């Protein structure tokens, strides 16, 4: 994943300096999020309120929070960098690798999550398959979530050092303790509110770049012309027409990998089973709001390339120097990873620059808050309650959630310092995290749509999927020549390799689950009510005009998705 390459942002002269008005804007943001957390404490006095925000979120709040939990700064800067490297192909991450899966979550999977009133995705696995599958998913998720939280925080500190010259320890501690205060106080509600706030900040802070950039280049055609002048013979502006062969595009990927690896395995794994994002829409006030909120999230996800991909393309067109890979960035040179901050500094003067930096900081902090709140929920409901203390008062679990949030922040800080000394941890954690959620999708979707799937198959299928993904990753690490078997090409870049490995992992999971199911005993039908398609009565959404129904807007988003792919074919 390109985002993680940001960690390697090497030391050098800082890219920009802030004026007093910029600093004031940043300080105001910190004051507001702390105030919000303390204000919301009074609304998180039971465990249901703390972990699930009382399940009272409106569609808009749930939807914006859902999409913001994914719109972290690390991802934004990473994908802008990847765009400079691979071109508009990276927009697949926002379209085919997101929209179909999000709409599938909204229309097919959410009703099951919602009806069974579980607190988490591992909680669903418990109801469907039993304790084994839940324990594997909960423990993996808890460990990886908190690890990723620390890695994100460390990455933020490194970036702030590179961009602004800030002290690493200052960035880590101030941001982490702020997150600790507002998540510990307000729980998921506080995390959600800050994510909605972050959504506005990111859009308002980053939208300046594409607008002014397109004015500078004289519009889209002018930008394309400049890219072709700067990089003759290379195609950075087509999404599908160059994917008929592995060598025809900068990423070294074939369209089959994009469709089946990226669009199916990775995308459906992440968007439908990663509890970090699913938790947001599960907090909606009713099923219709949950579905509509998810569709709202899909709509804004479709627009994100405006503030991530377009700045990367504009960088190719207007920057007077060429960016280089991180490993080649010497003194006075800039790496791909700096493209977004460079474009920010190019167009934003005092005030606007502070807003842009605040947007990035907000993205990092809400990313950490999202991880910590999801960790607290999974730890309390799926590890502590079933495995350690089954019978306790609600106040006890609430207290556990609060302390767990604080503990999560401190473990994240510890992880950040661990990463500082053992940078290879990032590589391992990334691989495990990404490929843990892919087999999870196979396990969840087979459980939801096929009533025959057995508890033993759910457990072993999940475990085999995880082990296969790790095994393939290790194989390439030990023998780089294995790449041509896994990704069908020894030209495959990192991103293409990830895509194909995810595909194999999902296939292994599904095949193992189906085969084991055929030889083991299924659950009795009466235990599957509310959990499996065909055994569950989906509640009516009520009588609403067509323009208030999730399906209407889902169709609109799907049509927009098709049109965008055709335009940039």
């Amino acid at each position, binding site marked *: 994943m390109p985002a993680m390459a940001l960690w390697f942002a090497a030391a050098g002269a800082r890219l920009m300096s802030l004026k007093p008005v910029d600093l004031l804007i940043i300080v105001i943001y910190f004051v507001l999020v702390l105030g919000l957390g303390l204000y919301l404490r009074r*609304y998180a006095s039971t465990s249901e309120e703390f972990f699930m925000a009382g399940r009272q979120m409106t569609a808009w709040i749930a939807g914006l929070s859902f999409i913001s939990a994914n719109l972290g700064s690390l991802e934004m800067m990473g994908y802008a960098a990847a765009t400079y490297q691979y071109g508009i192909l990276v927009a697949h991450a926002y379209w085919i690798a997101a929209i179909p899966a999000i709409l599938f979550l909204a229309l097919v999977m959410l009703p099951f999550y919602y009806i069974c009133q579980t607190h988490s995705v591992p909680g669903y696995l418990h109801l469907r398959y039993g304790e084994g599958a839940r324990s594997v998913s909960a423990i993996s998720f808890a460990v990886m979530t908190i690890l990723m939280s620390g890695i994100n925080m460390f990455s933020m500190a490194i970036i702030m050092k590179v961009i602004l010259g800030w002290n690493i320890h200052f960035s880590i501690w101030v941001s982490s303790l702020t997150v600790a205060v507002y998540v510990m106080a307000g729980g998921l509600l506080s995390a959600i509110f800050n994510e909605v706030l972050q959504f506005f900040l990111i859009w308002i802070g980053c939208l300046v770049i594409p607008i002014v950039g397109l004015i500078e280049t004289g519009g889209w055609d002018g930008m394309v012309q400049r890219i072709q002048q700067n990089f003759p013979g290379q195609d950075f502006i087509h999404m599908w027409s160059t994917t008929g062969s592995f060598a025809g595009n900068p990423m070294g990927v074939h369209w089959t990998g994009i469709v089946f690896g990226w669009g199916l395995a990775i995308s459906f794994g992440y968007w439908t089973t990663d509890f970090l994002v699913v938790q947001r829409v599960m907090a909606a006030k009713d099923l219709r709001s949950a579905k509509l909120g998810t569709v709202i999230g899909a709509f804004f996800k479709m627009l994100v390339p405006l503030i991530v991909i377009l700045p990367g393309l504009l960088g190719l067109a207007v920057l007077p120097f060429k960016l280089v890979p991180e490993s080649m960035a010497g003194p006075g040179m800039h790496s791909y990873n700096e493209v977004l901050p460079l474009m920010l500094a190019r*167009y934003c*003067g005092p005030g*606007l620059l502070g807003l842009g930096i605040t947007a990035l900081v907000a993205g990092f902090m809400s990313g950490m808050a999202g991880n910590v709140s999801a960790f607290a929920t999974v730890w309390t409901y799926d590890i502590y309650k079933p495995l350690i203390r089954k019978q306790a008062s609600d106040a006890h679990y609430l207290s556990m959630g609060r302390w767990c949030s604080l503990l999560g922040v401190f473990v994240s800080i510890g992880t950040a310092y661990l990463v500082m000394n053992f940078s290879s941890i990032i590589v391992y954690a990334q691989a495990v995290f990404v490929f843990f959620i892919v087999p999870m999708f196979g396990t969840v979707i087979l459980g939801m749509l096929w009533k025959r799937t057995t508890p033993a198959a759910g457990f072993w299928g999940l475990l085999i999927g995880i082990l296969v993904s790790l095994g393939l990753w290790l194989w390439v690490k030990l023998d780089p020549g294995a790449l041509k078997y896994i990704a069908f090409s020894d030209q495959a870049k990192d991103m293409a390799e990830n895509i194909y490995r995810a595909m194999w992992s999902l296939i292994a999971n599904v095949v193992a689950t189906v085969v084991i199911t055929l030889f083991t005993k299924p659950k009795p039908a009466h235990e599957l009510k509310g959990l499996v398609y065909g055994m569950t009565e989906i509640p009516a959404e009520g009588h609403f005009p067509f323009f208030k129904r999730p399906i209407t807007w889902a169709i609109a988003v799907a049509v927009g998705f098709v049109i965008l792919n055709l335009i940039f074919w």
Partner: protein
Amino acid sequence: MHIDKHFISIWFFIGSLLVVYGVLILGAGVYEWAAHSPTEVVLANLHVDVWWGAGMLVFGLIYVIRFWPRSDAAK
């Protein structure tokens, strides 16, 4: 969640933040413009900060007014 009649909507907080940021960015832009000390950014002659700050201010004011805390209804 016991959202009560005193609960302040998230949209109000967002509107307030946009108003404050709008004033600061608009102020910084007007100062740069009036002092004839344009920054070194590309296309500084467009005075993007002035228009952007003004837009944020208007957008924020609409949210603040629309979602001003009232005691008669929960948000």
